[in-house]
Each structure stands twice: as structure tokens, then as C-alpha cells.
């Protein structure tokens, strides 16, 4: 059925998702939301991979998606862990509250 839906649509969609994710990272200040946005970017990439791998019909893309998912999961875990750790020092989830290092 990919025959009907041209590749460029998928690319467009994933690009949109990716851009939204990126925008989110730039705008949102809540660390958790930022994490979600990063996830979103990664999943946009996943979509691109899948689309391409169907289009080229090569399985590499799909395998890559597995990798990305695993990595993404780990990153979320790390992110949460770091945040929890940080909360022991400073009671906030605002990413810009953590600015003791500068200059």
C-alpha cells in the first residue's frame, strides 16, 4: 500500500514530527517535557527509517529502528535518574534553574 502513499509524504510527516520535537526542546523548560520532545525527534527518525526501508525494501532500516528504540529507552531512564539526582540539590524541574555553571 506504500504504492499509493508516496514516500515524500512519510518524509514530510517525519520531518514535521522532528521539527515539532526540536521546537519543543527549544521552547519547553520542564526537563521531563524536554525529554519527551527528544523522544519525539527520535521516533520521527524511526518513521523515516521505516519509510525508507519499505521504499528500498532493505531490512537495515528496521534493525536500526530497534537500536534506536533501545537507546531511546536508556536515554529516558538516564534522564529521569539525573533529574531525580538533581532534585536532591535543587527542588525544581525547570531546566534553566540549573545554571550554577556559567561564564
Amino acid at each position, binding site marked *: 500500500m506504500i504504492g499509493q502513499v508516496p514516500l515524500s509524504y512519510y518524509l514530510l510527516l517525519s*520531518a514535521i514530527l522532528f*521539527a*515539532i520535537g*526540536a*521546537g519543543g526542546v527549544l521552547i519547553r523548560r520542564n526537563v521531563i517535557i524536554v525529554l519527551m520532545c527528544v523522544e519525539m525527534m527520535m521516533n520521527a527518525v524511526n518513521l523515516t527509517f521505516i519509510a525508507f526501508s519499505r521504499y528500498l525494501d532493505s531490512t537495515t532500516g528496521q534493525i536500526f529502528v530497534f537500536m534506536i528504540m533501545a537507546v531511546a*529507552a536508556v536515554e*529516558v531512564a538516564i534522564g529521569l*535518574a539525573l533529574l*531525580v539526582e538533581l*532534585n536532591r540539590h535543587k527542588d525544581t524541574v525547570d531546566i534553566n534553574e540549573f545554571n550554577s555553571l556559567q561564564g
Partner: protein
Amino acid sequence: MPLDYIPILILFVIATILAGVSLALPHFLGPRLPNKAKSEVVESGKLAYGDARRRVPIQYYIVAMLFIIFDIEVLFLYPWAVVFWDLKWFGLVQVGIFTLLLIESFVYVWKKGVLEWE
């Protein structure tokens, strides 16, 4: 050929402009009268109540993380399951190693006493 991808570029541009503008506008528009309500983190209309520590016991996060990780790792077993018969022992050994590593880390977590709720 390039024309097909113009939208991607455009979208990137729009995204920046969007981000840039929305970061910049607050500095120019409107008077600065910070009060508690304003300086709070706004989550789509819902007020973020309480503080980070009082919300949920820490173990919750840890267990959640562990769940995510172990859950995702399982995902690698699916493709193996599909071609299980064709791969024969080779596949079994490979996956065996993989699982062993998973178990090792599980033991590590366990011995570290992360799973203790109290």
C-alpha cells in the same frame, strides 16, 4: 530533485523562527511583573502542584526506569523468534549471550537492593 525536499528545509526554518520568536517575544512584549503564579512552570493550563520530592516515592521512578529498560530489551527477541527455526543453535547461542547479560544486570540491580521498596 531538490524541490521535493524544499518542504523539509522550510519546516526547519519555520521551526526556528517559531522557537526564536517565542523565546524572544516575552522579552519585548508586556511589562515584567513576575509573581508566583507567573514564574511557575505552566503545564498546558494545569498548575504544577507540590514540589518534586513530595510527589512520589523515589522508588517509583527507579522501578519505572528499570521497567522501561528491561521491557525494551525484550524487543530484540522478536526478530529472533521470527526466524527461530532457521537460525538453529547459532541463534540460540547468540540470544543466550544476550539474555545472560540482561540477567547479569538484573542480578546487579537486585543485589544493589534497588528493588527493596522500603
